[in-house]
């Protein structure tokens, strides 16, 4: 006898076409002005911030910066659906998501501007900070989810990572544990098709990244990461399940990295201009704007006002950032241990003297 013992499929959810026209019958809530106009405003802010950050880097006022161009919908929708008690385990591209969680815009600039204080996570409650070593945060997320479960707290953990991150053992280990322990974990992969210069198809031979969760016994699906309505439906459902003790899931959000990998990268070395041009057709902002315009919730003057407000907010944050007094040298020793060992105190003095102008 030979019979199929495991059958499954991966679905892709999408409600809006690239031009903002509905593909399907839309969920009832999406006919209302909220939350979609709020989503749109935040997406505009995210994009304006991004442009400003890149400009600051180009003029020597910020360090290497990873742009979030093309990831705005994923971050904004996730940020809005998470409750204060849910816990975020972000990756390094989630600037606006961290802002929605309460991180001041100025602090995001401080972090990428080489100042430790930017990573303090003011306002982020129990959220974890940026993780630069790829995929390491996925295991933290499993641990955070295990602590919620252990304490019988009905909240969810949201972890984000890139498509490249799914190749690391950490990712598989985190999903595996989440499955076995039935953890309240929502894993969101921002599949932007590139890991620096390595295209998606060279990262994994499987047709979807979502299916990696099936091996861990976890439900998984794809969602159009440029479609805020689809993201809202899929992520919202996942969060409710996790909070209700129904276990983990993996969401592969299909997006496109519309920028270089970071300001230190030059994607024109490895990416065909046509592909980028085509990807812009799927721009998440354009899609949502058109949808809102068609419903009469958005127009030119609202757009202009929204841009102005974003600019003002960003300008203020940049001014605050640039006016922030330099980080005291001793801060490199602060918070290293609960209490600084006495023997390290002399090194604080050394640090102050160091770098004080070479010969």
């Amino acid at each position: 006898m030979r019979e199929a013992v495991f059958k499954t499929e991966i679905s892709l959810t999408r409600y809006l076409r690239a031009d903002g026209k509905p593909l399907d019958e839309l969920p009832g809530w999406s006919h209302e002005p909220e939350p979609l106009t709020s989503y749109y405003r935040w997406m505009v802010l995210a994009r304006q911030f991004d442009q400003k950050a890149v400009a600051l880097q180009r003029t020597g006022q910020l360090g290497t910066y990873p742009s979030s161009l093309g990831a705005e919908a994923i971050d904004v929708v996730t940020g809005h659906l998470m409750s204060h008690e849910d816990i975020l385990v972000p990756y390094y591209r989630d600037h606006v998501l961290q802002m929605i969680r309460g991180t001041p815009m100025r602090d995001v600039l401080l972090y990428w501007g080489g100042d430790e204080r930017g990573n303090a996570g003011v306002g982020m409650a129990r959220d974890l900070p940026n993780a630069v070593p790829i995929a390491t945060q996925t295991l933290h997320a499993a641990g955070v989810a295990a602590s919620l479960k252990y304490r019988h707290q009905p909240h969810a953990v949201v972890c984000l990572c890139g498509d490249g991150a799914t190749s690391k053992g950490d990712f598989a280990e985190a999903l595996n544990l989440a499955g076995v322990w039935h953890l309240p974990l929502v894993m969101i992969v921002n599949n932007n098709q590139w890991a620096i210069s390595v295209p998606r198809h060279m990262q994994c031979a499987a047709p979807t990244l979502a299916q990696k969760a099936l091996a861990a016994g976890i439900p998984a699906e794809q969602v159009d990461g440029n479609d805020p309505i689809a993201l809202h439906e899929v992520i919202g459902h996942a969060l409710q399940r996790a909070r209700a003790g129904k276990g983990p899931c993996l969401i592969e959000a299909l997006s496109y990295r519309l920028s270089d990998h970071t300001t230190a990268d030059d994607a024109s070395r490895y990416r065909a201009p046509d592909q980028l041009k085509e990807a812009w057709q799927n721009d998440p902002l354009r899609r949502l704007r058109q949808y809102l315009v068609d419903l009469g919730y958005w127009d030119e003057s609202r757009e202009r006002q929204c841009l102005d407000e974003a600019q003002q907010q960003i300008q203020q944050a940049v001014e605050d950032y640039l006016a922030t007094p330099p980080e005291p040298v001793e801060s490199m020793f602060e918070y290293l241990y609960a209490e600084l060992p006495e023997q390290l105190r002399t090194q604080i003095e050394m640090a102050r003297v160091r770098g004080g102008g070479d010969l």
Partner: protein
Amino acid sequence: MNEPICLLEAVNLALARALDDDPEVILFGEDIGHNGGVFRATDGLAKRFGAHRVVDTPLAENMIAGTAVGMASQGIRAVVEIQFMGFIFPALEQLIAHAARLRHRTRGRLSCPMVLRAPYGGGIHAPEHHSESTEALLAHIPGLRVVIPSSPARAYGLLLGAIRCDDPVIFLEPKRIYRASRTLVEDSGAALPIDRCFTLREGADLSLISYGAMIPECLAAADNLAERGIDSEVIDVASLNPIDYDTLLASVSKTGRAVIVHEAPGKGGVGADISAVLNEQLWGQMRAPVMRVTGLDTVMPYYRNEQHYLPGVSDILDAVDKSLEAGRNEILQATGSG
């Protein structure tokens, strides 16, 4: 090659030479193929030698190291890149538990002739986790060779030496001086020995012992000291495991003074190791205690404050002055005056 080249280009030149000379040399790592590496160390090599020999991998350092061990066990010269030393940690199990011990465990039947390259060190205003110097972790492991070049010529020769070596070699590239200076490097295919120090400047009064990106700092300090009539010897350790103690001991027994410089934290560092051996072997011949100038015993700060962490010329000169001072006190005591 008649143009002067920088350290980074010398790495590229050595890799090309190795690929050209030996069909069993294979390069792999993240972004090293089409993109030529994030620093361009492998620029043009995939095009020239083919994507089957200069290979882009999925993103996974444990996989890169473990696969290299497997290939090397079959005699393939796997030369792999970890994009930044800060991301080497997932590879440590494979390096420490397997690469370092494969020959030993199989009583010589198999060996592990792999090279793992990684840029390391601070001073380039990089983001968090991109500036550390954790070479001591690796130099601590019996069976792993650790090599660090500090000039274009040594990068070329040492990398060829590492690739031809039958042991696993960790080849750490001081990225701060990747493009710092240019010299003529002949593409002769000649390797440099990977178990020798290089005496870069001879001197009678004191030995400055260092490696990597601190070498230019030491040379600048030596120039400064020369103006004051102090004649210093500058030695590039180059191989952190094994360490060429013959050269170091000969130098310090001549000068009687040693200042060791590295940007990694002092605690448990390579400088502590060298200092211990100098003390064990040269007790009685030293004119001053061995001094160390190192990175501080804390997390590498984000870039705004990195210059307050990294040793510089003036820190080296301060240590030299202490060394000279200590010698003077000793002379005063010995002669009973003062």
